[in-house]
């Protein structure tokens, strides 16, 4: 590529950035002491279990996770409409890692929980933090069919903040519709599940498109997700079939967590 055409491409990209993503992907929380979390999907039924790898994040940031004081993290649970069902505080003491089995919470007021966020205690205000916010971006482990090994995936939406004890969405969306193509060719035989959470304060409508022929996209039935809610788009791909999928929405980044289930095993990754 010549220098001139490279510069022109860069300028065009910047102009498009200004049109399509004119705000930041996620907002800054309004309080300096806010803490951020992703919104992690829960899978809990006869085929699935979910665990979360809880670390002493404040300790890791300050350079010592062997501290005298226990580290307390608040797990906030939400149903598929984004309604907050309850909070459980988990105390971590004398250990570097604590694997939290989510099924132990799935009863009573939390029985319908579909997502959770993890907020750590804020860092000492005296610690120089360069305008950053403490964040939990996860590792959630999913086990399928009691296979004995979890598939891990990290959060990738930086969805919510805890500000003055209230959960606030941080994601941005707009009127302009944007496409996100999952960078994965769907190969059969497999069942695919695309799990979306809505990190914004507005209801969002997502329209899936699939293509068995690379240049012929077929429009699928759309679905809506409430703020902090969750929805799953399912696709069954037959043996020998290959398929692409893209999603149209007002979300700045409509990236799902993708589960691929095949041959009694599974793979999980973020889109």
């Amino acid at each position, binding site marked *: 590529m010549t220098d001139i055409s490279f510069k022109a491409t860069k300028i065009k990209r910047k102009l498009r950035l200004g049109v*399509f993503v004119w705000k930041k992907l996620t907002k800054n929380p309004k309080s300096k002491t806010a803490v951020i979390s992703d919104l992690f999907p829960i899978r809990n039924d006869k085929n699935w279990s979910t665990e979360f790898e809880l670390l002493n*994040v404040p300790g890791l940031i300050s350079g010592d996770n062997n501290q005298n004081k226990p580290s307390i993290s608040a797990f906030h649970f939400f149903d598929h409409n984004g309604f907050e069902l309850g909070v459980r505080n988990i105390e971590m003491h004398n250990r570097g890692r604590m694997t939290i089995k989510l099924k132990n919470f799935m009863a009573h007021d939390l029985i319908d929980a579909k997502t959770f966020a993890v907020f750590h205690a804020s860092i000492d205000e005296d610690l120089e933090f360069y305008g950053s916010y403490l964040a939990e971006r996860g590792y959630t482990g999913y086990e399928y069919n009691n296979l004995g090994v*979890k598939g*891990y995936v990290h959060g990738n939406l930086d969805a919510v903040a805890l500000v003055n004890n209230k959960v606030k969405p941080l994601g941005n969306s707009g009127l302009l519709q944007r496409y996100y*193509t999952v960078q994965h060719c769907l190969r059969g035989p497999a069942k695919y599940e695309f799990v979306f959470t809505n990190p914004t304060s507005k209801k969002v409508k997502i329209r899936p498109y699939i293509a068995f022929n690379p240049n012929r996209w077929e429009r699928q039935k759309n679905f809506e997700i409430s703020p902090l809610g969750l929805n799953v788009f399912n696709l069954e791909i037959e043996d020998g079939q290959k398929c692409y999928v893209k999603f149209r929405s007002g979300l700045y980044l409509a990236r799902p967590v993708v589960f691929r289930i095949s041959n009694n095993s*599974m793979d999980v990754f973020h889109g």
Partner: protein
Amino acid sequence: MFFPLMKTPGLDGFCDLLYVAPNNWENRIKKPVSIYVLWSDGHFWNSQKLSEMSYGEYTRVTTKDLDQVILNSGLAVVYPSISNLESKLESLPSDKVWFSEIPAWRNTSGFYNQFTQVSYQADIEPLPTKASLLTFHPFIQFGNVINNLLVLNVTRDPAIQKGKIQLFNSYDKSYVNEVEIATNSLTTIPLDCYNFKSTDLPVFYSPSIAGIPFGLGIAKSGKMLSLEHTHPPASLVLHGDRRSVQGKIKKAWIEKLVKK
């Protein structure tokens, strides 16, 4: 942008490419591209053209498709190119052909066996030749599973430089071991021999070679594989000057681990 094709003992690797940009506005390239595999012999980046791709197409490259000499270091990179490449290159190509930022233009890379496959959404921006790595590893699983740490490194320079990665227990800062890693390679480090407990959080530190670390879990039955990358310390925070926070976190840990 480069896409990894990785080989680890007992598993084959794959690199799935999809010639469709992740978004509809950032990079509207539709020209046919040549798909090259590039690998370092320590002196040059060698290149071999594998195929051509038109817009909208999909292709899969596996470690089984290639001469094993290409994967001597455990790693080759796949590169879509508009122009023809020489068979020997003194540096990785600098043209970013499949490139976007929101999100990054990625592929699906991973491993497979006779039962299953595991993948992650991959893209490789070459790392500086001289850099350090500090990361925490929460992926060790227990029971009928084999746990490995993978360290992937790619630099523009084809030299294969050796270095050490040190293992510690983050909780009591105790030293566990050190293992050789190399640039332009994928190093597989078995972890089960160290008997980490379920409450331990191992920390890995390399003073001279940066890399992308992964936890790879392999069910002893072979029927489930698990692959995820660890994060750099900057991922513990968001917004603001994350590089400065990362520098501060690394300094605090390195002082405690190495200068103990």
